């Protein structure tokens, strides 16, 4: 499964429900695309984000982190991960960030 370069635009703490950004190099989240069913998260797929530095440390002034992103499972809709696409990521029912695919 190919990993794509992505920009992760973190939602404000009031939306994420925490002031802390992930302090890990690997972060798993549920993806939500525009074409997902209204019944989402039923039918959602997990994405894996890999960072070269933990988001808490690499956050830039503009409020985003750079990562590589891929779906965690082979059966996921990999064709959604193309340059220019964006989707939201969630921890359970809580939105935490928007992800822009860069390549």
């Amino acid at each position, binding site marked *: 499964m190919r990993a794509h370069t992505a920009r992760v635009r973190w939602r404000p703490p009031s939306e994420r*429900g*925490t002031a*802390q950004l*992930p*302090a*890990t190099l*690997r*972060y*798993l*989240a*549920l993806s939500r695309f525009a*074409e*997902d*069913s*209204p*019944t*989402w*998260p*039923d*039918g*959602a*797929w*997990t994405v*894996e984000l890999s960072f070269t530095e933990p*988001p808490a440390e690499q956050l830039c002034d503009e409020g985003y982190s750079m990562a590589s992103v891929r779906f*965690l*499972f082979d*059966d*996921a*809709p990999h064709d959604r991960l193309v340059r220019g696409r964006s989707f939201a990521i969630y*921890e*359970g*029912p809580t939105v935490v960030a928007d992800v822009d695919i860069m390549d």
Partner: protein
Amino acid sequence: MQGRGLLAGMNPERVSITEKEGGAGFLAGRLFLVAGATAPVSRVASSGGAASGTTTFYRGVGAAEAADVAATGTLRAGAVAAGNTGKYLTSTIEAAEAWGAVHGAGGQVLKITIPADATATVSALGRIDGIGQAYWAPIEALHGAKIDVIKNIGAAATP
């Protein structure tokens, strides 16, 4: 993508829990996850009935999280939870094993038993990753959870 699970047609809002009590324990041991004030949508494995008031979930973990649970006896957020502030749980051993296997050898399937009233903040997510029903538990809901290892996933790599 079509909704395939028990939450099809429902909004992914945080759920509340009700457990029918009294009578002859007609619904003892059954836990209903109710979105808002609508109809029951799911039953999670329960043990012991209404008297004990516990609910059982399963979770597949990688080697690092398995080691952390063995060392601390607790489920923790953060580094051993892929940066998450809570845990994803499921209702069957098979689904837990499928999720745990993605983390490689050395993982485990954990049986997680929590007081029924602690599930008030647990969210039913529906079918995730094409594997099975998933639930999101904020880490606070898992304080005091009873954790049992019920299965090893693969063999740990040897040097």
